């Protein structure tokens, strides 16, 4: 009898221990992740310096980055060749519809807590109530401004469009710029169509409807309104016709000619590169919440986001999901990405954490940049431009017609109509 009890206890204990080992053991093997170069370098760094290697010693994680316009092509080829590698795909909105529409990724609805994610970004990857990806990064537009000039001239940060123009006129009178728009259109990174997309989403419109139709030049899409506003901004006295993301932009900044810039928050990366040169004339820059473009409207918009997907052909899905969750749906992962690499996503607990635990930026007078962006994401329902399989070409088409509009070859309405019809043709050819 005693032996039976002993044996039972023994087997129960072994069994329990076995279960635990099975859990930690089940999550092992190689997990690969692929995406844009900067995002992947950051991910690898966050993984290596975080708690995950200790927690899951059997998982070998490798993030491989490719140049921005290359990675989608590379991923598609891998999947076309029936490759299980990469297990995790990190994709910008320009291409997500390709992967979603072609049924290349698995749903992760059971592994995500919807309430913990910023809703607007989640909707982009929700099809028939199934959620397919975690949010890795959202890129809201912000208002950069020179705090010292603001104090010297005695104005407040504008919260409405009219205030924005009023402040702009004062700044123009002082011989400085309040915004920078490049009449040459910029390149795919620092491009005017991305600024335009920020506008159109902030106004509540979009290029594509949720059903995939082109609504750019319809009343619902608000494209013409956005184009007219963009044109008005370009023509204002206070707008410099320089590319903000290029060396010439920073030359103007360092020569003290620029008092503000309404641009995606990633401008801070370029600042960090340009100002390491050690220039005292840089001025006291801060990051602020942009004004609303319509009464009661959102005070920011986002032309793109990045999501984390799991490859349907992955042979290590369980581990891949854990890793993906770490980067897109965990406090440690998301806050590390934010504080070390200024990549801010949509995981609410992390955003709240960042409000009090943001890295201080000496460049911006010690301001917590991450805190500011997190605040915008939490308090403003930042809409994200809806992507479509033809999004890549649509962006190039928009850039072309917006450039023509800025150079006075077309009116805003003509430009939007022409762009819309060309985008429709592009959709048909895909």
């Amino acid at each position: 009898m005693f032996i039976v009890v002993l044996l039972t206890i023994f087997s129960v204990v072994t069994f329990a221990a076995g279960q635990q080992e099975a859990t930690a053991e089940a999550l092992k093997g190689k997990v690969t992740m692929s995406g844009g170069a900067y995002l992947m370098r950051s991910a690898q760094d966050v993984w290596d310096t975080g708690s995950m290697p200790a927690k899951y010693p059997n998982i070998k994680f490798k993030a491989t980055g490719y140049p921005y316009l290359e990675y989608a092509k590379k991923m598609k080829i891998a999947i076309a060749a029936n490759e299980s590698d990469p297990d995790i795909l990190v994709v910008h909105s320009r291409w997500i519809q390709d992967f979603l529409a072609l049924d290349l990724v698995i749903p992760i609805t059971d592994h995500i807590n919807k309430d913990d994610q910023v809703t607007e970004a989640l909707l982009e990857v929700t099809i028939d109530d199934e959620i397919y990806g975690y949010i890795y990064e959202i890129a809201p537009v912000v208002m950069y401004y020179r705090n010292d000039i603001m104090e010297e001239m005695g104005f407040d940060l504008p919260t409405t469009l009219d205030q924005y123009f009023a402040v702009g006129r004062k700044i123009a009178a002082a011989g400085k710029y309040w915004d920078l728009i490049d009449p040459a259109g910029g390149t795919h990174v620092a491009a005017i169509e991305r600024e335009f997309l920020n506008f159109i989403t902030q106004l509540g419109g979009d290029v594509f409807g949720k059903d995939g139709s082109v609504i750019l030049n319809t009343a619902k899409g608000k494209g013409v309104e956005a184009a007219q506003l963009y044109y008005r901004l370009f023509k204002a006295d206070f707008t410099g016709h320089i590319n903000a993301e290029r060396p010439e932009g920073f030359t103007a900044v360092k020569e003290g000619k620029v008092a503000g810039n309404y641009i995606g928050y990633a401008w801070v990366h370029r600042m960090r590169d340009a100002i390491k040169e050690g220039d005292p004339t840089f001025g006291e820059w801060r990051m602020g919440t942009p004004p609303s473009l319509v009464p009661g409207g959102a005070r920011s918009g986002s032309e793109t986001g990045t999501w984390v997907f799991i490859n349907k052909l992955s042979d290590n899905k369980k581990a891949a999901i854990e890793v993906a969750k770490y980067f897109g749906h965990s406090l440690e992962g998301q806050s590390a990405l934010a504080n070390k690499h200024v990549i801010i996503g949509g995981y609410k607990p992390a955003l709240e954490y960042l409000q009090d635990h943001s890295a201080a930026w000496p460049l911006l007078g010690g301001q917590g940049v991450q805190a500011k962006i997190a605040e915008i994401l939490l308090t403003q329902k930042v809409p994200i431009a809806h992507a479509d399989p033809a999004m890549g070409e649509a962006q190039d088409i928009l850039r072309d017609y917006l450039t023509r509009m800025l150079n006075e070859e077309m009116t805003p309405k003509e430009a939007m109509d022409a762009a819309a019809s060309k985008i429709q043709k592009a959709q048909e050819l895909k």
Partner: protein
Amino acid sequence: MTVRHAKSIAVRILLYGVLLLFVLICIFPFYMMVSGSTKNNSELITLNQKLLPQQVNFRKYALLSERFPFWRISLNTVFFAGSKAILAVLFCSMAGFALAKYPFPGRSICFALVLITLMVPFQSIIVPSYLILARFRWLNTFWGLIVPGAVPAFGTFMMRQFFVASFPDEVLDAARIDGCTEFSLYWKIVIPLSAPSMWVLGMIILMLNWKNFIWPFVVVSKEEMFTIPIVIQAIAAGGVHEDWGQALAASTVGTIPLIVLFLVAQKYFISGLMSGFSKG
């Protein structure tokens, strides 16, 4: 001093003037490349350009090797260009020899194939090349970089011209009489005697592939397999860290070796380019 003499001096001054102007135009961008790679971005693009940099610093080079595995990339470039050159010399001379010295059935068709390949732009086969390489799993590998196009039509054409015009049949016949087989004829007689031409071809192919951007751009997307031209595009085409000083640094590293090689072997290059083509 006669009028004629004065006129001839004036003409000379004019000639040299023009030539020197062209020299300046040719040299200045190189100077800017090297000096620019030592400047900060703010000095590089500014209305206050100075001919000499304020202080020469090599930070850009350090940044470059932090950001990319630059040693590996440079080696890739050398290996790629070098292998292409060796394979081209070997196979082009074979094919050229066959076309020149053996009136085999089908020779005119084969020669026509070579000519057609010369006329067609590479762009027409970018997309299928990429897909074929993907199917072979040769993307991002040296196989994929080197094997396709290892026997350039231009090289075959050049070698064929050389063999037709400058390689005497008598030497071959003499060797045959001495009992040499056709196979060893090539290795023992032809190669040693056509060495200068082969060097020329090798140098030209080496240079062309060192300069080649579009083929590695098609085949390669992993950083470890980059060649230096791709690095330029990766840096200067935008992205989070667009840094032209770094791009200039990379260009300097990519250009200087080839220029040095060119200066050392310029006899080969120039004579090859000058004569290889003028036979039309």
